[in-house]
Structure formats: structure tokens, C-alpha cells
């Protein structure tokens, strides 16, 4: 059994590195805007049933800390591959577009789909993200193209 155990552990370790190395290169957020632009038209008009509700925003913040903070940072301003959630691109996206992105993820840019979280909780997260407001200091790479529609 030992002959397989050691190569197996080595392989596992190397995979961990392989996964980690894709973190290293700095990416701009264009992939996210392209992904948002893929959201079906009907999703744009989806309304967030929790929008502006303080309890839901507080619950959304709790969920953000559990699921999103690891990549998007404590201040939600992004980290390496993860975009700034206070950028104009995210803040100007409709709740429906964000709901679509959260459900489907952006797997080619390392964002997993979060469909395993109940829909209600995803809306609570979006209510929290929207409550953050735009960050005036967002860098150029964190700024969305002028119009999502132009990417469609």
C-alpha cells in the first residue's frame, strides 16, 4: 500500500500548488463584466425581495463573512482574482444580474457557483453588497466597461 500512498500524497500536494499558482497572476475584472453581460435579459428585471431591509442586510453581511470574504476581502474591495464589489461595475449591475452571477459563478475566473446556498440567502448577500455603495477610489481595472450591453 505504501508505494501508492506516498505518490498519492505527493500528487495531492502538487495539485494544491497547481491550484494555488493560478492565484498568483493579477487579473483585471473584465472577465466578471463579460460574465455579467451573459446574464439572460429576463434576469435583469428580477427584484430583490430583501432590498433595503436592515435585517436582511445584516444577515447578508453575516453570509458575506462566511462565504465571500475569503476571496473578496474583509472590506469587499477585492483581492487578486476577485473583483472589487464596491466598484461601479458591481454597484451599477441590477440585482437580477448579480443574482444570476452568484448562482452561476464565473468558473473560468475561479468564482464557484453558489447555487448550493438557498436563493433567499443569495438575495440577502446581494442586499448587503448593494448597501455598501460605490467606492470612489476604485482603480481603473475595477471599473466596468461603459455599458454591459455593449459586451453582449
Amino acid at each position, binding site marked *: 500500500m505504501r508505494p501508492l500512498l506516498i505518490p498519492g500524497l505527493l500528487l495531492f500536494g502538487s495539485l494544491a500548488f497547481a491550484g494555488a*499558482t493560478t492565484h498568483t497572476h493579477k487579473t483585471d475584472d473584465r472577465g466578471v463584466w463579460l460574465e455579467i453581460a451573459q446574464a439572460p435579459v429576463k434576469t435583469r428585471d428580477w427584484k430583490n425581495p430583501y432590498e433595503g431591509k436592515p435585517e436582511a442586510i445584516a444577515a447578508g453581511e453575516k453570509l458575506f463573512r462566511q462565504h465571500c470574504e475569503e476571496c473578496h476581502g474583509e472590506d469587499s474591495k477585492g483581492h487578486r482574482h476577485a473583483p472589487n464589489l464596491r466598484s461601479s461595475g458591481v454597484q451599477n449591475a441590477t440585482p437580477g444580474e448579480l443574482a444570476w452571477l452568484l448562482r452561476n459563478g464565473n468558473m473560468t475566473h475561479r468564482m464557484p457557483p453558489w447555487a448550493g446556498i438557498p436563493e433567499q440567502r443569495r438575495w440577502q448577500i446581494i442586499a448587503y453588497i448593494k448597501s455598501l455603495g460605490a467606492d470612489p477610489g476604485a482603480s481603473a481595472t475595477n471599473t466596468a466597461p461603459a455599458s454591459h450591453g455593449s459586451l453582449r
Partner: protein
Amino acid sequence: MSSLSSVGSGGVWRTPVLRIAIFLVLLLSALGFAPRTCAQETPYFVAYSHHLEEPGNLEIETYSIYGTQKGAGDFIAPWMELEYGVTAWWTTEFYIDSQHTFGDSTVFTGTRWENRFRPLMHEHWINPVLYVEFENITDADKTLKEVVGSDSQFDAAEPNFEADASHAHEIETKLILSSDYKGWNFSENFISEKNLGHEPWEFGYALGVSRPLRLEATPQHCNFCRENIILGAEMYGGLGTTDLLTLSGTSHYVAPIAALQLPNGVTFSFSPGFGLNDNSHRVLLRWGMSYEIGGFGRKLRSLFR
């Protein structure tokens, strides 16, 4: 004392107690400093859903199964899993299996290496996942992570010294189909397993359904609240082989499941399973704990910068 007496010049690293102590210190340090994340996993023991490990996260899992046995002693089979999200569409997992049979012995029964791939990059009504696993185990393995072919409880009655001498190299593939609807998860797995020796393909199935007790989150931080509890059930069994595609001689189980997902990344799971026919073990109790370490890959790499 016996371990200390073996410590000589340069032999300190070979002392088993010291090695275990160093391992525990390193593990606890890693856990203490690791960012904890909360996974979005389903609570199944046998079935798989389409939700993969988040990229860069490592989940350390330890599970056990207690089974009643006709014709031999009951058994406990613990196994450990290391699950890593290589990308958002690829999860790899390494298993170490063992078992103890009452009135017999305790044996290490082998290792398994599993990979799951999501071929579609968006969510659909039904989401497929392709699963490939290589198993290097002995016939003494009783983890019952899957039931295929005409597996029955009588296979597990073989004494450990005989079963452990028989090695099996197997490839297992699964087509995982899974859907989420209004907080429910529905998963269907179609299993094919092939011993790399001259044996036919064996087939099996696993079905799972689960749902959190509460769909909305509350603003308060809580551990023992309804939003952290997931209930469900799974059913699994064999479907015969390429030589004899029949339900005759196969075994089948149904098992309710309860899981508690704590916000700090720890999940506790429990499932009492019940055999549905005479070929099945009468009772299979499963329990386990998992711990998710967020950003493990990045942390590991930063150590070597």
C-alpha cells in the same frame, strides 16, 4: 516510557510519540491560523451532488460507519478524506480507509483517489458531474462508500486475515446528476465499477435529497439554529453486473441524514441507514466531522515564497 527509552542520539525524530506530537502541533497551528470558510455542501455520505469544493479550499474530513453483520462480528470502518478544490470545476479527493471487526482484528484497508469534473460552466435544471476514482483497497474494506453489483453483507463476513490478503485495484466512474430547487437538492448517481483484473463491470445507484431547515439566514451569529441544520435522506444499492444485469442478489439501503454546519467551517453529520432486503446489513450507522480551510492552496504556496 518505552518510547522514551528508544531515544538515542539522532533518534529523537524516530520516536513515534514525538512524531505524533509534532504532527498535532503543526496541524493545530494550521487550523488555528487558517481562515475558516463555510462550505455549501450537501450532507450526503454516499450520494454526490454537483456542488464541488471551492477553489483553493481544503476540507479535512473524518467519517466512520458501524455495521451489523450476520455470520461474523459487527464492524466499525473509519476513513479520512482530504478534499481540495483545484479549480471551480475540478475537485480532487484522497481517502485512507481502515476497519475494525469485533472479535477479529483491525486493519488498514487501502487508499482511494477521486476526481470530480463539471463539464458545464453554468447552472442548469440538471447539472452533470463526471466522477473518476482509482481504488487500491483490499477485500477487507468495509467503508461502503458505494454499493455495486451484487455486493451483499455476506461478502463482509470473511475473516480479516483472508480478506486483507486479497488486493483489488478498481476504477470507479459515476455520472452525477444534481438539481437545486427552492432550497432542495436532488441528486442521482449512476455508478460503474471495474476491477482491473478479469471481472465484469458492476453497476449501482445512489439517490439523495436534502434541504436546510430554514432557507433565510438570521442576522444573529448562531451555532445551533435551524439555518445551520440540514436534513435529508439517501437511498443506494447495486444493480448487477454486465454478466447479470438484475436486482436479484443485490443489496439496498435507505438512510435519513442530519447535518449541522457551523459558521466556523466545522460540519457534523449523522445518518442511520437500514437494509431493505436480506442481502443488506440490517443497520449501518454513519457519522463524521469535516473542517474547511479557506485559501489553503494560497497559504501553502506563501510558505515557500
